């Protein structure tokens, strides 16, 4: 009898316990990510749809392919080309520099504090772009900039006479690299932290030289992360506008500057073409993503799926 009572109590307790648990409802599961979906809908999906539809419209709102045919003018093609070149160059330079610095602060034996110092700097510098960055470079590397003058007066090196010009492809690349390499440091450091000391020791133990360890073990393991970092850098540079505009003032016709002048310009105002230019940028990025995907698939076939 007492056993039976015990059993009933247990069952009742179990039922009670179930009831006090929060309801696993659809709403509570999804509410946390709702702002994300709202933001993407309003600021990615809808603008993209509008961008693509308007790229096929003329100023009066009629359907046309004119905007896309206009993309093949030499001026526009050359600005795509210069944007791609500068993005590629700064992704490569920034990526390499960032990787080496991240390698130094993770694998290298630097005193405490250097690592956190560089990481803090990277967090700030990777977001330092636009007008302030352009001004900083004008003030230092411009024709009468501090560094330029210092080099000239103290070391008798006139970099402008030697062919350097801040308002050129090289100068702009240098400026972009300033925010590119810190971004690379930020994205590649976790991957470097994930390297096991034992891999290096095992390689040494098996007779591998430092070079062989780098070629056969370290680089293949890091390659997916390096590629990922570089594609991010490419996109970062490809979409940059304010830095280039305020530095060169349209001297170098990046594709973003072309888009800007078509949409808000007083002289060249042709929003339809502007939209088509933007769609062209999306296509360039898509092609880059496909390359990235293929390379990455090749380099990470050993990763846990």
């Amino acid at each position: 009898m007492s056993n039976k009572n015990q059993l009933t109590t247990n069952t009742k307790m179990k039922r009670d316990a179930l009831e006090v648990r929060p309801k696993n409802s659809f709403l509570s599961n999804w509410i946390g990510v709702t702002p994300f979906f709202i933001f993407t809908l309003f600021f990615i999906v809808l603008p993209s749809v509008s961008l693509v539809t308007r790229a096929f419209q003329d100023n009066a709102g009629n359907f046309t392919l004119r905007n896309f045919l206009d993309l093949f003018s030499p001026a526009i093609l050359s600005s795509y080309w210069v944007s791609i070149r500068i993005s590629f160059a700064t992704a490569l330079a920034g990526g390499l520099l960032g990787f080496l610095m991240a390698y130094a602060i993770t694998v290298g034996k630097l005193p405490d504090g250097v690592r956190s110092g560089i990481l803090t700097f990277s967090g700030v510098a990777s977001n330092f772009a636009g007008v302030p960055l352009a001004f900083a470079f004008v003030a230092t590397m411009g024709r009468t900039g501090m560094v330029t003058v210092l080099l000239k007066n103290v070391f008798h090196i006139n970099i402008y006479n030697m062919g350097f010009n801040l308002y050129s492809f090289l100068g702009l690349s240098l400026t972009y690299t300033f925010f590119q390499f810190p971004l690379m440091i930020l994205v590649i450091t976790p991957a470097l932290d994930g390297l096991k000391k034992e891999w290096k020791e095992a390689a040494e133990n098996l007779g591998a030289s430092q070079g062989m360890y780098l070629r056969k073990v370290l680089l293949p393991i890091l390659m997916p992360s390096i590629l990922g970092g570089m594609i991010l850098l490419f996109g970062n540079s490809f979409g940059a506008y304010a830095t280039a505009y305020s530095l060169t003032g349209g001297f170098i016709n990046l594709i973003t500057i072309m888009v800007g002048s078509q949409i808000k310009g007083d002289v060249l105002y042709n929003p339809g073409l502007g939209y088509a230019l933007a769609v062209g940028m999306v296509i360039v990025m898509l092609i880059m993503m496909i390359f990235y995907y293929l390379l990455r698939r090749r380099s990470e076939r050993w990763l846990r799926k």
Partner: protein
Amino acid sequence: MAFIELSNISKVYGTTTVVEKVNLEAEKGEFISFLGPSGCGKTTTLRMVAGFEQPNTGSITLDGADITYLPPRQRNIGMVFQSYALFPNMTVGQNIGFGLQTRKLPKEEIKQKVDEMLAMVHLESHIDKYPYQLSGGQQQRIALARALAINPAVLLLDEPLSALDAKIRVELRLEIRRIQQTMGITTIYVTHDQEEAMLLSDRVVVMSQGHVEQIGPPSRIYNYPATEFVAQFVGQLNLLPVSAVDMASATCTVAGHTIRFETSVARELSESPRLAIRPEELQIGFPAAGEEANTLSGEIASVLFLGAIVRLRVLVNGVLITADIFNERNITFPRAGDEIVLNFSKHACWLI
């Protein structure tokens, strides 16, 4: 001359001495274990043999050649790590072949050696798998095959089984011993598991706080521990307070009983000597007989069933003594509160 010889090696980090004047001579084909608690310097010593650390003083010779400051890659010593350390970007076959590739051997020769090594660890069908597709035990077998593929002069294993679960651990340690004996390779094995050390080794090096406490065959270490640390660290040990010692008659008083002990094992006594006896040396129930027998009588405080062994905790005049007896299928357990007599030979105990 010994095949591998560590003479007086010491390692200091800052102001801490991690390894202090360690000496060891190992013969070719010998299986040596470094046994000790964490932080006793056993891994550091092994890493100095591998070349990942350099001793501050002393030297290491291998087959007569001084290798103290030789880079790891020139030593021809194989190493197995606790975390397996397989290269994740290489297949099993590439991992095993890596050391041969660094030696620039022809492809066919590498392939043949890889197949041979895989057969040795019974993982032939896994040659094209990546490490993530293998279990921990399989990964460690591959790591062993990789270390042995280069035909090393010495094999080093740094707690290779610690990351594995109990069943695999027991399987793999037998496998390690089998392979070591087949190949006749000189092996140094680091572990904190005394059972592992005793089961595998020809000789065990017990270490504590950076120095060697005792070197000897497992049975010697267990039955004739050289120091109190070894006596306590290896196996279970009763250490009973002694109230009076008479060295002339080799007797002492423990918990009100007169106990005869073996004088030959007694060393210089500490100020408050204790009587040491292993739990399995105590027998219950038999009446004491003969000149060599000792008897303690007390009351059972608790009974612990451990499977093969039943552990009794017995209170003898306020002193707690542990006695192990073998389990039997139809055993009637003694119960807490039962009066009990414990017998042991004078050869089973010694004074510390």
